[in-house]
């Protein structure tokens, strides 16, 4: 050690060789990342498979991209930690196998608002519509910005088929039929949600508005794991 770091030591020589210096630096910074990442990809048991976890429907996927666009993940996590208080507050803690189709992952790093990993099915569809329109109408004192434009913007499904195709390429198990029928499937799911919202006394004709996709996505969150625990 002393031979290396003394004033005229070996390190002094190294300081005269930028190329060697850069190569050693590169090697030093590669090690940590590789050691942590390679076993994760190679050892399957690191992410145990949950059989009830399935890919998002085309409408849910569209809603998820709206969630990303609006930056919801800046204030809402989707990751219940295995603590008694979190399980009590939100529900079952999150498992590695739950998010295998999530590109990107949306676990979040801040809870300005509550965690959403188990929000699916917690409220009726209409609650979410009202909440986006005016968060204070469902949650007094909320700090959340209103997202009323989601009820006005037309739902764009022109790329949903391409989205499924790209995800299929990355390994998400969509069938070719899923890809072809993506838009049709999204329209059908949107119509069903719009009908429920209208029947509950909410706004009419939201089946071709962005809100319907976001509601579909939010109602999906945590559902797969619940299906697993059902008898």
């Amino acid at each position: 050690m002393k031979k290396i770091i003394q004033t005229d030591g070996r390190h002094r020589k190294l300081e005269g060789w930028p190329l060697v210096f850069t190569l050693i630096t590169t090697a030093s910074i590669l090690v940590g990342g590789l050691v942590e990442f390679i076993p994760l990809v190679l050892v399957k048991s690191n992410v145990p498979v949950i059989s009830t976890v399935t890919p998002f429907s085309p409408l849910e996927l569209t809603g998820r991209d709206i969630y990303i666009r609006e930056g919801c993940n800046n204030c809402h996590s989707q990751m219940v930690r295995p603590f008694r208080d979190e399980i009590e507050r939100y529900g079952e803690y999150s498992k590695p196998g739950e998010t295998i189709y999530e590109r990107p992952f949306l676990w979040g790093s801040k809870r300005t608002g509550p965690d959403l990993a188990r929000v699916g099915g917690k409220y009726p569809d209409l609650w979410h519509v009202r909440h986006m329109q005016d968060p204070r109408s469902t949650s007094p004192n909320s700090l959340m910005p209103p997202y009323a434009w989601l009820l006005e913007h037309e739902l764009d499904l022109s790329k949903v088929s391409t989205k499924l195709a790209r995800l299929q390429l990355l390994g998400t198990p969509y069938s070719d039929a899923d890809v072809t029928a993506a838009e049709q499937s999204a329209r059908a799911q949107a119509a069903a949600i719009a009908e429920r919202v209208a029947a509950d006394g909410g706004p009419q004709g939201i089946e071709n508005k962005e809100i319907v996709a976001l509601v579909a996505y939010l109602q999906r969150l945590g559902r797969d794991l619940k299906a697993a625990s059902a008898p």
Partner: protein
Amino acid sequence: MESSPTATATSRSAQPVEIFRYDDQIVRMFVVATALWAAVGMLVGVIIALQMPFWQANLGPYLSFGRLRPLHTNAVIFAFAGNAIFAAIYYSTQRLTKARMFSDLMSRIHFWGWQAIIVSAALTLPAGITTGKEYAELEWPIDIAIALVWIVFAVNFFGTLRMRREKHMYVALWFYIATIVTVAMLHVGNSLAIPVSFLKSYPIYAGVQDALVQWWYGHNAVAFFLTTPFLGLMYYFLPKAAERPVFSYRLSIVHFWSLVFIYIWAGPHHLNYTAIPEWAASLGMVFSVMLWMPSWGGMINGLFTLRGAWHKLRDSVVLKMFVIGITFYGMSTFEGPMLSVKTVNALSHYTDWTIGHVHAGALGWNGFMSFGLIYWLLPRLWRTKIWSDRLATTHFWIGTIGMLLYVMAMYTAGVTQGLMWRAFDETGRLAYPDFMETVIQIVPMYWVRLVGGTLYLVGVLLMIYNMIMTIRSAPKDLPDPAVAVPAA
């Protein structure tokens, strides 16, 4: 200008001399850009700080919190801190290698390319065009532009090292090398994605893998964009400003290598108790705690450089800024390992404590080191005196008070909310089952944070005013400084 050094050089020996000029114009450009983006990035910060306690400040889709928050983080990290480190690197590398930058054209491509990337970020993020990955929100065409500009920067930098007239590389250059290599690796590794359209893509990683890659990137963006280049900056500009040699050469070797090796491992501490394998989280935690020592190696080497020169702080706003900067570096690199310990993290994670921690680093270390750098460079680059030393000192105090208010408010908010989330009553039920109760409790702290952040911004505006007045008093003609060295 150039005749006098030539004359002295030739009179000392009969050896022929070679004259070359440093490119200081590029440094001036980066300095001006640093100040401009500081104002923009921090203004957006103040706006989103207002939006948190006052939702009415969310004005429509383009100016809502969810879209502006990434704009704030990108602007302060990549625009403000980015331009500051480029200014420092271009100024000090030329002097440490006794060479002009390898290519003037590459320097300009780097400068204008980087500014164009920032502008495209400022246009796309409010439009909701985002990958949704923290600190890597920019979509794939901009990511490719970043990679290309970074390559130009790297070629220009290593080209300069190749042309150097000084045999040994000073410690600042080691840190610059680590910065350039690692940022390239992190950016490319984390941004790999498959495009759906021109402005939308999906990452090639999913779920747990994406989380680990993201925080390998996210944590090391802090390490190699906000730490190593600023340490390099410290190693060059602090001894210059203090007129003292660096405290310990050996310490700089030991802490450089341990820092670059250990930092990379620490990423998973951002994912403690989440759905990642236990071993990965524990590994991240252990290396984070180990990281405390090399980090403090840097702090000690910085602060001890001032031994016997502490009295200079009285008159030098540059040294005042540097000392606060290095002290906050020490505090946040102690706090970081502490927060990465699982039991502490269980309380702090997802709360404003993290925001407080980040801002101790960003406002304290990155901000004050950049301000010190700017106040040191201004009179030298524009060949005049700082317009007002008093105004600079006022900036120092306003900035310090603002930062302390900010950080204290966030610590209070974070610990309060963390404790409320986990509180149980005597019957074993959640003491605050309604999430809203825990929010209402900390809203006053959001207002205090707004005051602190605003003060900090006011300080920056004072600096910009001082800078404009200084530049106005500069001579019209600013030729690149000439240097004479013995011809090889």
